[in-house]
């Protein structure tokens, strides 16, 4: 039965996707994403966020096609400078360089890039297949969710991101709370009362999500680069020989790629956990399972394959959660949900019933983006390397101008642009105080979801607190989800008490 459902998932969207414009957009998006991701300081978050305003005037299929291309391209592109210069272009590719860069120093940079490309491709395709088979199943299951279950899942999403984002759980929770607060700005739909608008008419419909994200992630990063006294420039080593990996090498790596893809999909599917965690976990898993663990870190292709397959597969997993539950699987899918909302489309289980061809089109775009990634990667990896050297004094102003016009384009008001700049400064302050930014974005997305469903739960129980609490407690799913959430919140403290290091410490931006 699942396969039958999947069958139409493959074909429904064919006509939507297989036309010159959409194909061009996927290719262009992938290429743009690769370039974007390859530039240290520009992240997948930024790339997707900056281009969301452009997608407003496109059809929904085209919009998602472009953004999916950028997403996957950036996750792969970040591995290029990581391999060549030990400077990850995106945090998700952090672990790629640990084995990739030593390979470059040995003159095997081309081989490393080839492994990275094919692993990303295979990981991404595997994840797309999982999306095709699992998403309808999850969506049907999620169709039985009441408001209590939705609240619980949203709450879980928040706790996870606070747990893994950054070194301090407290600061992560604080960041998420700031995001929740920003989400309450605007007219409250249930009571009709404007909250925290301070008389500004522009805030009545709330702080525009895309504007906040571009500000906190994009503008903040650029401002930080401006704030540095000098700009760093690294030198690319000269030797880049053949790129396409040999059959023998790929055969050797097949289980690494398979394992890492599965891990990536699972991590991505979990609300709040994204490509960076996927990369770190898969690399660690590969080190433990490798036949030569002592060689990991000295230039083993396994390390490159593990991280790259995983972070691409993660995108597929995150999109599965996004499409079937309406909950972001990671911070980029949070932005994608915002993009869909701009188009008037609500992600979630209803999407499968109401717009099956759109879901199919998204799946096909995912597959095609991976194909383009393989093509571009193998053909032009060496040339990508040189784009990384773009001087910062050109890069920063151009991207800021793009951000400004993009923020203006959302609702044709310069208020949003000033707000974006303000959030940019906030982002710099947050970095200075070591407050992670990803929980803020997730709080912004999940907050309204939490509030609406919490209130609906109360309403269904005539506003009685006891009856509402009972309705939560009587649902086994809710109890399980809350239990997991509490466990995750308590885990770092427990591990510290047992004198063990908390599981993952990494950089949170995608």
């Amino acid at each position, binding site marked *: 039965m699942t396969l039958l459902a999947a069958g139409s998932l493959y074909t429904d969207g064919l006509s939507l996707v297989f036309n010159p414009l959409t194909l061009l957009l996927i290719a262009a998006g992938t290429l743009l994403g690769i370039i974007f991701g390859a530039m240290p300081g520009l992240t997948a978050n930024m790339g997707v966020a900056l281009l969301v305003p452009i997608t407003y005037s496109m059809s929904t299929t085209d919009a998602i096609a472009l953004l999916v291309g950028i997403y996957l391209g950036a996750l792969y592109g970040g591995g290029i400078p990581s391999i060549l210069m*030990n400077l990850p272009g995106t945090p998700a590719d952090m672990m790629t360089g640990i084995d990739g*860069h030593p390979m470059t120093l040995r003159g095997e940079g081309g081989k490393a890039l080839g492994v990275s490309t094919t692993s990303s491709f295979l990981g991404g395709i595997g994840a797309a297949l999982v999306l095709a088979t699992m998403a309808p199943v999850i969506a049907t299951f999620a169709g039985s969710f009441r408001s209590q279950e939705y609240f619980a899942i949203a709450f879980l999403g928040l706790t996870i991101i606070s747990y893994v984002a950054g070194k301090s759980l407290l600061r992560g929770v604080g960041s998420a709370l700031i995001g929740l607060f920003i989400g309450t700005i605007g007219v409250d739909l249930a009571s009709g009362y404007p909250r925290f608008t301070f008389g500004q008419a522009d805030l009545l419909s709330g702080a525009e999500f895309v504007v906040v994200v571009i500000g906190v992630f994009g503008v903040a990063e650029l401002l930080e680069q401006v704030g540095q006294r000098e700009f760093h420039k690294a030198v690319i080593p000269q030797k880049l020989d053949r790129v396409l990996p040999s059959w023998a090498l790929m055969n050797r790596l097949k289980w690494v790629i398979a394992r890492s893809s599965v891990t990536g999909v699972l991590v991505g599917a979990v609300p709040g956990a994204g490509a960076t965690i996927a990369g770190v976990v898969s690399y660690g898993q590969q080190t433990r399972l490798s036949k030569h663990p002592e060689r990991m870190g000295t230039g083993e292709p396994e390390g490159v394959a593990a991280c790259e397959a995983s972070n691409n597969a993660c995108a597929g997993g995150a999109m599965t959660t996004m499409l079937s539950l309406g909950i972001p699987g990671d911070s980029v899918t949070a932005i994608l949900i915002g993009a869909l909302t701009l188009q008037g489309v609500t992600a979630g289980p209803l999407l499968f019933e109401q717009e099956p061809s759109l879901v199919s089109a998204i799946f096909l775009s995912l597959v095609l983006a991976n194909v383009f990634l393989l093509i571009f990667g193998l053909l032009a990896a060496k040339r990508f390397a040189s784009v990384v050297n773009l001087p910062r004094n*050109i890069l920063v*102003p151009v991207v800021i101008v793009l951000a400004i*016009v993009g923020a203006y384009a959302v609702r044709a008001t310069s208020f949003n642009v000033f707000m974006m700049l303000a959030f940019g400064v906030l982002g710099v302050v947050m*970095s200075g105080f070591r407050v992670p930014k990803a929980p803020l974005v997730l709080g912004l997305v999940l907050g309204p979801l939490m509030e609406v469903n919490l209130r609906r739960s109360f309403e269904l129980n005539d506003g009685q607190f006891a009856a509402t609490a009972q309705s939560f407690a009587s649902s086994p799913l809710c109890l399980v989800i809350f239990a997991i959430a509490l466990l995750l919140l308590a885990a770092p403290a427990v591990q510290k008490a047992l004198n063990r290091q908390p599981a993952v410490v990494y950089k949170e931006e995608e």
Partner: protein
Amino acid sequence: MRDIILGIVFTVGGLLIVLTTRDYPAASSVAVDPAFFPRVIGVSLAGIGALIALSGARGARKRRRVMPTQTRTVMAPAAAGAGTVSKPAATPADSGPGQPDDGMAPVAPGDAESLRDVARSLLRLTPFVTVSVVYVWVAFSSGLGYTTSTFLFLTFVMIWLSQKRSVKTYLALAGLSAVLSAALYAVFVIGLQVPIPVGLLP
């Protein structure tokens, strides 16, 4: 020290949120009460702030007892050694803006210094942010026109941030920004039909 200030900011912020909701209309049940969720957020934020400030104070006391020769290597471009997993080139999110950027030098994480660095880097940003704000106002509200203001802004900033100081570089940058401004106009105003107010110049 940073944590103490952060904690205080969070606590004050949380209390302000709760205070702002005091004037909100009373409601019969949580379902229609506009103040409920914000108040929960405000109280939680204040609580988290207190915890952060406390942990910062405890950390500062601990650090004062330890020798002040702890160093932390920032932005090491060299490959990681076998067996240990270390992070290559940290992005500013980790070390905060304004860390000394000569690459390999160890940095003593004295709290007062880091806080001064944060403040210093924010001050360093002020001219740039001011210029950007002026640009936004000029481009979208004044009569100068989007393309022209963008051209001026791009040229100015590119020269300002440039490390090479020669007339030839300046002219090249001016040319580049002219091309980019025209491209932006083409893409956003013509291609995507974004309603940018027309000025005296394009």
